[in-house]
């Protein structure tokens, strides 16, 4: 698993976390670090880009769910971008909606 925390100077508060590869128990802590970094910089719109993610487990999904709650609680936005049908389907089963392209 690898990730990039991206930011646009034009839109303060907008952060994209791009996750690649297989996101399992080994990867969840780094995903959590990336999420934490975005919060520390004052994220108000968090986009998690899973287009290149081939696997995601319950611990990583838990990190996403917690980030979503935190953002919703503070009136922010949270989006998961995903196009891999298998990953989209599992996320749907466990209650994480996804969109097809970076909003």
């Amino acid at each position: 698993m690898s990730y990039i925390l991206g930011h646009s100077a034009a839109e303060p508060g907008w952060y994209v976390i791009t996750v690649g590869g297989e996101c399992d128990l080994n990867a969840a802590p780094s995903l959590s670090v990336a999420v934490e970094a975005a919060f520390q910089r004052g994220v108000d719109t968090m986009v998690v880009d899973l287009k290149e993610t081939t696997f995601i487990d319950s611990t990583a999904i838990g990190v996403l769910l917690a980030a979503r709650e935190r953002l919703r609680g503070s009136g922010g936005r949270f989006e998961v971008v995903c196009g891999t049908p298998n990953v989209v389907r599992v996320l749907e089963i466990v209650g994480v909606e996804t969109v097809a392209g970076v909003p």
Partner: protein
Amino acid sequence: MLACPERLELPADPSELVTARRFADCAAARFGLDEPERYQFTFAANEAVSNAIEHGEPSPEGTIRIHVAEEDGALVFEVEDHGTFAPSPAALDPLPERGRGLAFMAATVDEVDVRRSVSGTVVRLCKRRAAAA
């Protein structure tokens, strides 16, 4: 016919999860699960093996045992560790929103069975082909 092993002993280390997933995925392909079912089976298997590694105890040799079989037309995945099943206090976990693995397994396969005994914990997952479900 794909050649996949039916049993595997893995060192109880998270770095072995990728091997457990390949093992589950190969069994699912050979059994003939279609693409999304196959992925869901591997997803549930990964959760069960993660739990054995993270919460269970390995054998004296440091391993946990996984095994697949076909039973009554369903694909069965079993993982066995030598620990005692016990709920863990959420507070000890540095990651938020944990504790959903069991529910996620139950939502992605047809049957999840957790068996505690003096010799350890066995988690058993069953999945049928979409048509027969």
